[in-house]
């Protein structure tokens, strides 16, 4: 009934869908197995993509030839570029999406990808021979062979949903949990643990009074996520979100449910994320705050369903309802469904290599929440890397690995496999030491050439990159040579309170002034506008960033170069740490477990002291 596949992907969320697309686009024959064909590319939690650090990740996925950027662009109902007042490394695109459109777009793109087959069933175990994965066994008993297997189980592995004292098995509201894989892998020596996450209630938008809330509109300009020319909504078509607040009255009502809260009665064992607490956690831990912000987010163009961002909870449903009714604008609220907490299995990611292959079983790859992460973007980028490497492994090719100085994706994977995680791992820009290099505006310049060489990014993407590079060179040259006449500039300079010119000045020098931007300069100075008339906004912005922030970019580049010695010092797989008798016990254990690939990675393992790395360095004769 089934041919032998190159790659089987288990699960069709953000990780699984990217994995299937990447492997297939590289030329693998792929089977995507999901428990429910109707929930491919489902947004289980909030209907939004991107945000700070996450937006950068989506841009990177797109630059590498993944689908998330395109899907997001084509299904967005609102777009905002966050942190625009800060430096360019912080500019972070964020979209509200139409949940249903997002999922159907994903399915459409996958169906249009040659080499992707679909099958609806639960995978209950992996076929493992000689510590090598070579297929899966489904709930119906089908054995399907493959050279590589990617598991993206999300919250489904032994998922348990908690609402107050009610406790039901399930991977998502209304969907069954998956069983079997954890139990099987543990017998092979895998370590598994539990994590917890939560989601807020969904309510009927027709029952809300928006006049009591603040409106939050989309940007006037929509730049989107994909570097390709994708059809997006116009600014005028955007939907607004709304902001409202809880009150002490709301908090008091919520507290009446604490004695039945699965969090406080100890029924939940898993660890939840500190940066995404439930509303009960917020009022408990920050007792001095008399109100908390809630974002009222529409779930799509053609639905009245509303996502109440900031009100994640697992309190009894009638307490949720009574408390939310006390929030301004929610007096007549009707619930579609209550919020809940969900516990699920994950495999501490220190059991993985840089290619996201497991160390214990070869040809087996993990991506997404199974690795302890949270977030669609974090899942999707892992899926992409796992999909690429499952293909590489199936075809006996070298793994594709991104460094910390290459991409947020590189930071994420290095963090996961070197440090592991105790709580659901989310990306922050502060995790990236080379943040100024890893910007949303240059993900294509950074990554598309690599992906093109690999064979994933298509010709069109590469041509765009080459054109952009040429344009930047050309614009830089113009700015370096173009002398601005005081007569042309001074009126504009005066108007923004900047010192006037007394003699001609080169455009690139003027651009370095803090409150001056290139668009305004072009606007104010017709001769400069003429000189740059044929350049695209994207290329102009790219050049402006490179010129304006050159000093900072160079500073970071210097650090990359300086530390590259450590990153390039490969520790042989066969290295025997026990021979280095003087390592601390903890370092010895960690080194043996994680088997760092480089001295750089060794230095980032938690619990390893600098002196341990120095010892290693001296011992290795460096």
């Amino acid at each position: 009934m089934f041919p032998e596949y190159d790659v089987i992907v288990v699960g069709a969320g953000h990780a699984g869908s990217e994995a299937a697309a990447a492997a297939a686009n590289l030329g693998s024959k792929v089977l995507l197995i999901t428990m429910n064909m109707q929930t491919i590319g489902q947004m289980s939690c909030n209907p939004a993509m991107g945000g700070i650090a996450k937006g950068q990740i989506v841009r990177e996925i797109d630059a590498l030839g993944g689908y998330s950027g395109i899907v997001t662009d084509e299904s967005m109902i609102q777009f905002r570029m966050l942190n625009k007042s800060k430096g360019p490394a912080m500019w972070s695109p964020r979209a509200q999406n139409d949940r249903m459109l997002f999922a159907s777009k994903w399915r459409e793109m996958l169906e249009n990808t040659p080499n992707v087959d679909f099958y609806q069933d639960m995978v209950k175990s992996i076929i493992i021979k000689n510590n090598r994965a070579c297929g899966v066994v489904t709930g119906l008993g089908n054995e399907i062979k493959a050279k590589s297997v990617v598991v993206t189980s999300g919250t489904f592995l032994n998922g348990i949903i908690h609402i107050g004292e009610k406790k039901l098995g399930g991977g998502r509201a209304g969907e069954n949990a998956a069983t079997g894989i954890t139990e099987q892998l543990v017998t092979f020596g895998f370590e598994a643990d539990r994590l917890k996450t939560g989601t807020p209630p969904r309510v009927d938008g027709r029952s809300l009074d928006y006049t009591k809330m603040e409106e939050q509109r989309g940007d006037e300009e929509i730049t989107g996520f994909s570097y390709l020319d994708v059809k997006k909504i116009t600014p005028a078509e955007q939907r607004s979100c709304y902001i409202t607040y809880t009150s002490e009255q709301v908090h008091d009502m919520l507290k009446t449910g604490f004695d039945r809260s699965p969090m406080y009665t100890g029924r939940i064992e898993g660890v939840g994320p500190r940066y995404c607490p439930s509303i009960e956690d917020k009022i408990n831990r920050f007792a001095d705050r008399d109100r908390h912000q809630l974002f009222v987010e529409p779930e799509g163009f053609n639905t009245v369903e509303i996502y109440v961002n900031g009100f994640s909870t697992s309190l009894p449903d009638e307490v949720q309802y009574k408390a939310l009714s006390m929030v301004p604008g929610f007096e007549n609220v009707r619930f579609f469904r209550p919020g809940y907490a969900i516990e699920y299995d994950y495999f501490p990611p220190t059991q993985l290599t840089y290619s996201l292959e497991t160390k214990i079983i070869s040809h087996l790859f993990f991506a997404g929440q199974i690795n302890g992460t949270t977030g669609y973007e974090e899942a999707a980028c892992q899926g992409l890397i796992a999909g690429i490497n499952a293909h590489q492994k199936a075809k006996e090719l070298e793994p594709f690995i991104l460094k910390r100085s290459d991409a947020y994706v590189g930071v994420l994977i290095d963090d996961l496999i070197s440090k592991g995680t105790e709580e659901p791992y989310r990306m922050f820009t502060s995790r990236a030491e080379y943040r100024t290099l890893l910007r949303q505006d240059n993900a294509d310049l950074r990554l598309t050439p690599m992906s093109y060489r690999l064979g994933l990014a298509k010709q069109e993407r590469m041509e765009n990159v080459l054109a952009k590079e040429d344009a930047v060179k050309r614009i830089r040259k113009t700015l370096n040579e173009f002398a601005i006449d005081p007569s042309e500039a001074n009126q504009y300079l005066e108007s923004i309170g900047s010192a006037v010119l007394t003699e001609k000045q080169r455009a690139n020098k003027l651009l370095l002034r803090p409150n001056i931007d290139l668009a305004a300069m072009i606007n104010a100075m017709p001769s400069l506008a003429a000189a740059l008339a044929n350049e695209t906004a994207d290329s102009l912005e790219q050049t402006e960033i490179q010129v304006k922030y050159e000093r900072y970019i160079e500073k970071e580049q210097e650090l990359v170069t300086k530390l590259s010695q450590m990153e390039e010092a490969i520790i042989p797989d066969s290295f025997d740490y026990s021979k280095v008798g003087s390592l601390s016990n903890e370092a010895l254990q960690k080194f043996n477990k994680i088997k760092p690939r480089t001295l750089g990675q060794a230095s980032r393992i938690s619990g390893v002291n600098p002196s341990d790395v120095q010892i290693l360095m001296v011992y290795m004769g460096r």
Partner: protein
Amino acid sequence: MHGKLAGWNDTITALATPQGIGAIGVIRVSGTAAIDIVNELFPSKDLTAQPSHTLHVGFLKSGEVLLDEVVVALFKAPKSFTGENVVEISCHGSHYIQEQVLAQLVKQGARIAKPGEFTQRAFINGKMDLTQAEAVADIIASNTEASKRNALQNIRGGFSHTLKQLRDQLISFSALIELELDFSQEDVTFADRPQLFRLLDEALVQVNKLLQSFKLGNVIKNGVQVAIIGKPNAGKSTLLNTLLNEERAIVSDIAGTTRDTIEEVLNINGVLFRLIDTAGIREHTSDVIETIGVEKSMAKMREADIVLYLYDITQTTAAELQAMEAQFAAEHLQYLLVANKADQLPNTYSPAGNGKLVTISAKNEQGIEDLKQQLFKLAVSENLQTDQTLVTNARHVAALQEVYTALQDIRDALDNNIPGDLLAIDIRRCLHFLGEITGEVTNEDQLDYIFSKFCIGK
């Protein structure tokens, strides 16, 4: 890339005390076989059966040939300086005997240690961090109490501790900056500018304190160069003899210093003062200022940390002194005016007034103690405390300088409303450079540098 360290598990040995004549020489042996090797030469007792941290008196013999009567100290791994088995043999201070003992140890399987190798092993065995390892180098180079005290303070980790405080300060500062970046969309209160400036200034003060201490640390480690100048017959050689005669007994205790240097070294409160160009004064052949000219004498004085201007109180006018002072000030020289021959003006002798003037009688040894205390104050200021953390290492100063520059960049950037993500680059540079001192970020160049600085035997 260098080859792996020669013979990782072998046993090394070297003379641990300075070469030359002394009452006792200590030979250190370190490595797995250290105790076995010494045991072969120590017939009176089975050393392998003795507990750690014990002393044993006996004869060292090579077969029937008596080498020396020695005291042997045993330190078993890991409770030793290097973390390995260590034996320290205290033998008599004859060069010949020491060479004989070393030769026999080598014959039994030990290897002569390379410079810095004992410390390298201690470092590799986790016995000390990088700053501590460097402090050992300082101790080896140190020959006064204050210098040793400072080096010991570093070994105990005082310097690392101060740096850790600084690191913590910077981390809290950067956390506030990061909060605004990653959580700008959250409903939280961000740090206000006065708060950021305050944190930054605290860090700047801390770094500056460490940097300033380098001057002091350097003085303690390398001594203070002092030039005595003055007209003929001002009494320079009398002063020199008075100063040195008194000190000779103390100074000659310092092992390893030659007679030549002893004659020119003063030890005041544990700090070394080196009197430069004293030969000329002694020989009465020339007067610095008059024979080699003002320019050249100034060049000499510029080599000095402190200039002592000695004059005859009975024959010097106020105008002359003022002219000298103006010249010193123009050259930014630290100086003391020393009025000599107070004995010839009955009842006019009085202790120094403004701190720049000391009245003495070199001949009658009056005011000499006062002169020394003034010298000491001028050299190390008054705030030398035994528990103060001092920076004595040039590599540390270079890194701290980078930290300071980065902090100032941050301050400028804050002043200019530069966005936080760009500020953060400088904060990371700060932490990175701090790491270069504590060893958290390191590379082979640093290690090569550190270990090449160690002399044999430690």
